[in-house]
Each structure stands twice: as C-alpha cells, then as structure tokens.
C-alpha cells in the first residue's frame, strides 16, 4: 500500500471488534471478542499517525513501543512487530484482552482527540495471538549468572518479574499456592474474556524459553516462610496479589446463597463449575441473582451468572431468570472497563444504580430470600473526587433475591507475612514498598502489584513486576546496593 497522508489516515474508520452473537454467547463460555483478521489489523494500523512524541506510550504502564510495533504490523512484517512488542511486554495476548485501554494508551491517542482512537489493544492482541501460534521470537536467556531468585505468586506481577529477571541470566523459581500458574488470570477472569489456553500458552512459552521452574501447591507462609526462602535465594519478589475478599458489614451475610465474587469466580473459572458434573466442583446460582459492586470483578460475576442461568435453563427447559447489578453510585461512577460494562448490558443484566443493601434476609432453612435496600442520591464530591452517595430517607424496600454475590474489592492475603520479620505493612494490609524499585522494608525482598497497591489492574501489576525486575537485576549485578 502506498504511504497515506495524514488526512487519509483520519478518514479510515476504527474497525469494530468482531464479537460472538450476543444471544448465542449467553449460553456458552467461549470467548466473546473474536479478534481482528489480518486485513482488519493492517487497515486499523494504517490509522496510526506515528507521532514523534507518542502520547500512547506515556499512557502504558509498561511503556510498550506502540508506534514501532504498529508500523511493522501495517507493513505486514509480523515478526518485526512481535520483536518490538517483546522489548517491553512479554505477555501481549493477555494484555491485549484485559487492559483498560480507554484509560491508558487509547485514552491518550491523538487520533482519539477528534474521532475514535487507534484500536491499540486489539492490535496488541493480534500480535500476541500471532506469536502464540507461530513462536517467531523466543525469549533468550543471557549467560547464567549463578544468582537465584524466588518469585512468590504467578499472577501478572510475578510472571512479568520472573520473565524479566530470568532473561538476565538468573535462575528463577516461582512459588504458586494454587494448582496451576496464572493467579487472577486463571481464578478470576472468565474464560469468555481471557481463554485459559491463552494464559497457559503465554506462561508455558515464556517458562520453556527461560527455564523458569514453577512450583505449584506451595503456600509461602505455610509450606515455606519468607525467611526460609531468603536463606536459599539471593532475592525474593512478592507478587501475591490481593486475594482476600471483603464482605459487607451488614446482617445476614452467612445465609446460604451469599458468597464472595472470589468464591463464585474461582468455582466457575479455576474449578470449571460450569462443566459440573463433568468437573467435580459445583456452583449454585438461583433465579434472581444480585451482584453487589460495579468494578470489573462485578461485571465478570454478572456475566458468569447470566451464562450459568442460561445453561441451567437449557437443561431444565424452564425460563432463565434475572441478574441484577446493585451499585450505590450512578452510571457515571462505574469503575469497570467500558467494554465489560457494555458487554454485560448487551447480555441482559439489569442495572440497579443508586441502590445500597442494608440487610440480607433469609428463610427458615437459612437460605437467602431477599435484600432490604435503600435508594441513594449523589451528594457532594468525596476525597476520591466522586460524588458521595447519600441515603434517601424513607426509601427502604425489599428486593427478592436467592443469590447474592459480593464484588466489593479485595485486600492482600496476610499469609505471606507469617514469619517475615521486618516486612512492614500499611494499615490497609498492603506491603510497604517503594513504587519505583519495589523494594520493601526487608532486605533482599521486593514486592509489586496488588499486594502493594491493593486491587488494581493486570497491566499496572505487570508494570510493577517489570520495575522490580530491573532493580533486582541491578542489585544482583552489583550495580546498585540495597
């Protein structure tokens, strides 16, 4: 294709993502976003203006070299595109699917100032999927240094740190408490949004190339303590995430049918309860589900509930039911990624904004029968800058429900702090660590991702893993002192 003028680039319309039919997908767990074809990807790449000072890169927590990979892509040089991608991002097939691009790269895109931004996330996914299928650019390990690094947790932070540290020639062992690697990528994010084959593909590919040893079923704080790891390894990185669920402090949370989003999603995703009884772990959703919260985890819970109801309806021949998302603020404050909110709406969730549960009510058998809620209105902005929801007096009402899923955020698991003297914690339970280097208050221990920041995004955890890896390497090489 001949070189286009800026005007011509502006005229190309942003390619919609091909999606699975919105009715059909309600009763299956297959991926919803199907991915660009090569023609779509190349045409979308033509929309990029190749800015001299790319704002998109500034918006990316790991600083992916976006103009470079997009240029290679539109020239049809996929191998080159992968090479550019891997300078900064070793897990593009994952990021391309789960990053909140509208607030990062795409949110900064100059094309987006006048029209719609370049679909950078979709292009990233296209490049990532190409590499998973073709493996053109294996990661290369530098000559062995003889240094040993332990990574605790195999989620986005731990994996990214492991890969970057291993590339420098250090021996890396990852300790994972669950039976498979991936952390929140496998227990939290559903198959229809991030297929497990993609996660396992990315992890196995990187681990094979770099000789990373992944020890599953190892709970640090129980099987081994942090201090024990320090006697065996030169450096330890904690990427244990924020795995502890929060429950509302209201009466009735222990009735049958009330669960944390963590329990619900773990049953569905990690344990594959949607395939029960072929898989052993069951999950129960009733006819009327209320998911409390409006973050990404809430959207995942809503969308899993809709699918489980539809699957149940197919089996029994009965009608499927309702799924409500109950949120105390309004539409404008919804913290979820735009695409997830949009998909949840398409799939039929009922949004109950400005609604706050006060109490969960049970029947005589100890199962949920309803929630007593109150209507809210928006008042003055609070510390976060968002308008504070305040209860409307006298507006209490009962909402009949048989399943309540609480998606109210999570905090770090305290197990890793067992027998780890000197590892300081904030009052929120997060590890105290320098955000630039990842250094904690305990010598030779780094930390990054949700364990430091509290629940955030996959990509910000990857960014933290990356920064810590750079500092670990400097210290191990003797270029920096602790």
């Amino acid at each position, binding site marked *: 294709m001949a070189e286009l003028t800026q005007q011509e680039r502006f005229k190309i319309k942003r390619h919609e993502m091909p999606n699975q039919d919105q009715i059909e997908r309600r009763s299956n767990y297959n991926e919803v976003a199907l991915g660009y074809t090569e023609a779509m990807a190349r045409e979308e790449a033509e929309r990029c203006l190749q800015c001299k000072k790319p704002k998109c890169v500034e918006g990316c927590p790991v600083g992916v070299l976006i103009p470079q990979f997009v240029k290679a892509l539109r020239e049809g040089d996929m191998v080159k595109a992968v090479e550019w991608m891997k300078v900064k991002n070793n897990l593009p097939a994952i990021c391309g699917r789960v990053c909140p691009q509208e607030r990062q790269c795409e949110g900064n895109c100059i094309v987006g100032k006048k029209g719609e931004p370049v679909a950078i996330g979709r292009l990233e996914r296209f490049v990532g999927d190409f590499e998973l299928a073709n493996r053109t650019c294996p990661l290369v390990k530098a000559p062995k240094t003889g240094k040993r690094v332990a990574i605790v947790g195999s989620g986005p932070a731990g994996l990214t740190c492991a890969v970057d540290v291993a590339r420098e020639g250090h021996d890396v062992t990852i300790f994972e408490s669950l*039976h498979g690697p991936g952390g929140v990528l496998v227990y939290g994010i559903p198959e229809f949004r991030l297929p497990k084959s993609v996660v396992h593909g990315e992890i196995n590919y990187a681990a094979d190339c770099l000789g990373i040893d992944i020890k599953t079923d190892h709970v640090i704080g*129980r*099987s*081994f303590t942090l201090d024990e790891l320090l006697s065996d390894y030169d450096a330890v990185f904690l990427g244990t995430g924020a*795995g502890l669920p929060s429950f509302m402090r209201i009466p009735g949370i*222990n009735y049958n049918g009330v669960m944390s989003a963590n329990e619900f999603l773990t049953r569905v995703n990690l344990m*594959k309860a949607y395939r029960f009884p072929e898989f*052993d772990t069951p999950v129960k959703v009733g006819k009327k589900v209320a998911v409390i919260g409006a973050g990404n985890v809430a959207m995942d819970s809503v969308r899993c509930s809709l699918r489980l109801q539809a699957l149940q309806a197919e089996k029994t021949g009965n009608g499927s039911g309702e799924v409500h998302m109950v949120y105390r603020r309004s539409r404008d404050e919804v913290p979820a990624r735009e695409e997830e909110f949009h998909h949840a709406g398409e799939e039929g969730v009922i949004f109950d904004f400005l609604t706050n549960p006060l109490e969960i009510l049970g029947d005589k058998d100890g199962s949920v029968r309803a929630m007593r809620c109150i209507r809210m209105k928006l008042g003055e902005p609070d510390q976060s800058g968002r308008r504070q929801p305040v209860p409307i007096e006298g507006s209490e009402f009962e909402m009949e429900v048989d399943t309540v899923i609480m998606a109210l955020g999570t905090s770090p698991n305290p197990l890793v702090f067992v027998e780890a003297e000197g590892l300081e914690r904030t009052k929120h339970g997060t590890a105290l660590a320098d955000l630039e280097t990842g250094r904690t208050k305990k010598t030779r221990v780094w930390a990054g991702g949700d364990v430091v920041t509290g629940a955030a995004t996959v990509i910000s955890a990857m960014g933290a893993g990356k920064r810590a890896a750079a500092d670990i390497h400097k210290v191990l090489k003797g270029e920096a002192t602790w």
Partner: protein
Amino acid sequence: MYKILKKEVLSDVTKLMDVQAPHVARKAKAGQFIIVRIDEEGERIPLTIADYSRDSGTITIIFQEVGKSTKQLGRMEPGEELATFVGPLGHPTDIKNFGTIVCVGGGVGIAPIYPIARSLKEAGNTVLSIIGARNKDLLFWEEKMRAVSDELIICTDDGSYGRKSLVTEPLKELLENPGRKISHVWAIGPAIMMKFIAQTTKPYNVPTVVSLNTVMIDGTGMCGGCRVLLDDGAQFVCVDGPEFDGHKVDWNNLLSRLQFYRKEEQLAVEHWEHKCRLEGALAEGGKR
C-alpha cells in the same frame, strides 16, 4: 504429583493413606489440614492431618467415603498419584501443659484428634480420651489412642463395642467428677457431635476447642466459602481456624451451610458411579 505410598482399610468406608509430600511434611503440626485434589477434573477438599513423618516426607490422611471425591480416593492404590496436595494449612493446635484435658474423637474425627492427644500428652498433660462411632466397624486406632492417653473410654451408638452411648455421656461424667478438674476439652468429629459437646461443656465453663471442616476451595483465605459465624462476627475456617472456641460457634448456621451443596454432591456421586460402570463394562467388553 504426589504418590500414595501406603493404604490401610480401617473399615469398609474408612481408609488411611500415606502420601509423599515433603513440602507439607516438613512443617506439619497437630491441628493443621491439607487440601487434596485427585485429578484434573477433581474438586479441592480439605482433610485434617492424622500424622506426619518429616524423615520420610509423608503425610497420613484418614477419610470416610461420603462424597464423590472420597469414594474415588478410597479406590486408589499405592503407586497412584494425586494431582494436588497443599499444606500444612490453618493454625496448629496451641500445645502446652493445661493440667488435665479431655480429647474427644468421633468417627473419622479420631484421626485428627490422635496427633493432638499425642502432643498434649508430650507436653505433660493428663490426657483423658473418649472415642466413639456409630458401630464397632467404624472405630479405629484404639491402641494408638490408648498409648497416648492416661485413660481411654470407647463408645458406640449401637453398643456393638465399648459402652453403648454417645460421647457426650462419659464426657458429662468426667466434668461432674469433682476429683478431675478438667481444664480444657478438644473435640473433633461430625458437626452435630461437636455442637452437643459444646452444649455439654458450656454449663461447666470448660474451654472447648472444636476443629471445623467446612466447604472450602483454596484453603488459603481466598474464597471465603468456609466462613463460620461466631459470637463476634464471621471468620474463615481455613486461615483463622480450623480450631475455634466451640462455645462461640453458631452451630445452626454451620449445619445449614454444610447442607448447601447436598443435592450437587449426590449428583456428582451418581455421575461418577455411572462413569465407573461404563468404564467397567467397556473393559469387560475388551476382554472378550
């Protein structure tokens, strides 16, 4: 993968296994539990640690075949391997010299009470033990329990062995005996038994430790499915327990939560038995 090294059939439905898991054995203590998953389709189930050997890197588990996973596990033989074996999880029992204590083990709960009784005995306590089961066939480890107890009382519900009574009867007698001065009671067994043990000791104000076995997935505090209501709010059995003050537990809530997946458990058993029959029939067909 974690290899089964030894299997003992303690009764028709109660099996003992030694499993090779050095990463668990190196730190295991009385009162803690493990999570096991048999294969890739398997569920994660908690089992209390009945014994351990740091030297050989093994953990002893004892289980009763009640659901799909325990039935399937019961059919496995030495040499076969388990997909997942995680631990030691939960807090170990607080072992010190309390004076005179009572250890009660009901049914398969005899297994986890044993290492606790042994540790308490080693710490200098006078250990009075009560073990019980529905009938003689379901009793096991009588001699092992006797070896770590100053006195051992055996009960069966049907009187087929030992005294014909529930475990609460001899416990009440011990509590009423002014010469005894019982300072603590440990009780492990079915939830309903622990409920009545707690009721029995309550009027005497004797601290009563129970070890709860609730529905769990990860066992590390992540899912919260195991939460139990205490007088002062909800706690997680996996990370806050598994031992709790029996007088503070909301037993009715616990019992109702244990029933929640009853129908699905039944379905899983039926599905599995059907699959086994099919496979059996296919194997038979192959021979012909």
